[in-house]
């Protein structure tokens, strides 16, 4: 089932094409990693889907609804944290969540709902510091509170724009575990835009690459794995060796970083090892590696 499908979606700001005919599809259960440089159009697309910005051209289907009023209704099934979390800064975390309960028309006991959601995002301590205002929170706490506000309605589709902003390594790990749990146990579909590609690669089941407002490609995590370039990585004792003889032996498509030689593709390794031995260069370790998401992304946008 398609949760979101954009059809030639475009957004033009004066003369800048922030989105240029984007056709993107998110299936139920996907954790969709949305990748692009700064200003590529990630946040603009999220703003359009969330209803904060209006598209200039094109349309989108959300939970099967494509007409404007239907989309407004469909948004009741989604939640989003766009750019920075939208908090009432002069109110406490508890009051912010209480207002969100009122806004969403939650009928269950608000105190209970708030307790549960704060527990989910590991912000239980705010139940004790009931009077601490959101303006005095750290960036990380604000981010967590924003996510708690998004989760309070038990959405079917969650949009997170740079969710790791301001989080410490522990917070990043906790958030990852929480999102994976929500996806696996509750089938929550997600669209996550992030610059932290290594982190995103631990979560996403599908990816969309965007550059200059154009969606370059959509790919599943499995496909990405298959298409990633394989490499043999030789970790050597030192970097003072001559590469010329290796190249004469046929070495091509390689990368040298200090004492680490990365040889791409299915090249015969033994002749190079022999040549290195001749130069008295000791091999410390040899292992196989495939391109990470970052390398794939760089290849995608032409290494710019």
């Amino acid at each position: 089932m398609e949760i979101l499908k954009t059809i030639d979606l475009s957004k033009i700001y004066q003369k800048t094409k922030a989105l240029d005919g984007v056709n993107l599809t998110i299936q139920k259960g996907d954790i969709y990693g949305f990748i692009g440089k700064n200003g590529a159009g990630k946040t603009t697309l999220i703003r359009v889907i969330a209803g904060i910005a209006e598209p200039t051209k094109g349309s989108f289907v959300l939970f099967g609804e494509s007409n404007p009023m239907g989309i407004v209704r469909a948004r009741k099934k989604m939640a989003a944290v766009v750019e920075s979390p939208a908090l009432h800064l002069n109110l406490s975390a508890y009051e912010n969540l209480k207002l969100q309960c009122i806004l969403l028309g939650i009928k269950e006991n608000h105190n209970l709902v708030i307790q549960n959601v704060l527990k989910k995002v590991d912000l239980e301590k705010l139940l004790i510091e009931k009077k601490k205002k959101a303006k005095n929170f750290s960036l990380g706490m604000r981010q967590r509170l924003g996510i708690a506000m998004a989760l309070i309605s038990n959405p079917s589709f969650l949009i997170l724009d740079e969710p790791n902003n301001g989080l410490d390594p522990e917070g990043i790990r906790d958030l990852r575990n929480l999102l994976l749990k929500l996806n696996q146990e509750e089938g929550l579909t997600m669209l996550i835009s992030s610059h932290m590609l290594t982190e995103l690669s631990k979560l996403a089941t599908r990816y969309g690459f965007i550059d200059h407002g154009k969606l370059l490609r959509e790919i599943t995590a499995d496909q990405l794995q298959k298409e990633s370039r394989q490499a043999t990585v030789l970790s050597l004792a030192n970097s003072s060796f001559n590469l010329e003889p290796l190249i004469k032996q046929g070495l091509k498509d390689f990368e040298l970083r200090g004492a680490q030689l990365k040889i791409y593709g299915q090249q015969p390794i033994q002749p190079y090892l022999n040549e290195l031995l001749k130069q008295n260069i000791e091999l410390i370790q040899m292992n196989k590696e495939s391109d990470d998401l970052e390398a794939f992304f760089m290849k995608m946008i032409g290494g710019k």
Partner: protein
Amino acid sequence: MKQLFAIEFARLRRQTSAIVIAFIIFLLGGLNVLVAWITKVEINPGEFNFFLTSRTILESSFQLGQIQILLIGVVTSLFIATDITQGTIRNKIIAGYSKFEIYLVQMMMSVIITFIGLILFHALPSAFSWLILFPITVDDGGTFANFMIHMSFGYLLIITGVLLTTWLALKSKTTAAAIIFTLLIFVLGPTLTTIIKTIIEATVLLDFDQFTDLAAFEKAQGNINAAFEWVYFYQLQRLANIGSLFNFFIPTRINFFSEGTQSYIWKTLGSNLALIGLLLYAGGRNFAKSDLR
């Protein structure tokens, strides 16, 4: 929509600045009793007396009217603009409310805040009138009904102004800009309109000599003033002077249904309702199609 109102009221209750300003408005109202207390009335030519009636209390409340309106304008601007600048209005859109719906609720909240402000402003003088001078009477020939009609026209005017500031607050990128727009509308607006009117008046009246052709002079002056009757800002200035316009000794001046004041009624009603309609419909459509921060 019920939830939207509920969240707005919850937000209003927690807005410290609104509570502080509401208290100031309440105290300003109390000041009116003091002002009325020292009203000096000429009983006979050259013979003055100081006395207090319900009329003097209510009349005096208009002397501080403009400050009261300005404060209400500041409260509504702050209330609306913080929702925009903190980005919390986004929560409402994401929660599945249409922008038009959100716009209407914001507009209605401004009207409600205005009424709360007006009630607070009149609370002390009214309570004082009822408790000390019960029942409220309008002496010297005027009727209480006419007085109330006059006041309701003033309130319609305030609502129009407040809706205008709400619309501007929704379009503002910062809270400071929203406050500046409010000041422009409630302070600079009437001042600029008066200046423009005076320039036009002076230019036209230069062609008449009031000593030789008083009738033509007065006619030209009347035409200029009539042209400005429907101008929103001019009406606001007039509202501040309602107390002085209110003359119980000449009952026809306060009778809105007399022939001489018909045009004033329709122009006031027409211009205000047109502006309110425009703000609700065109403003709402424009807001629905615009991007938020």
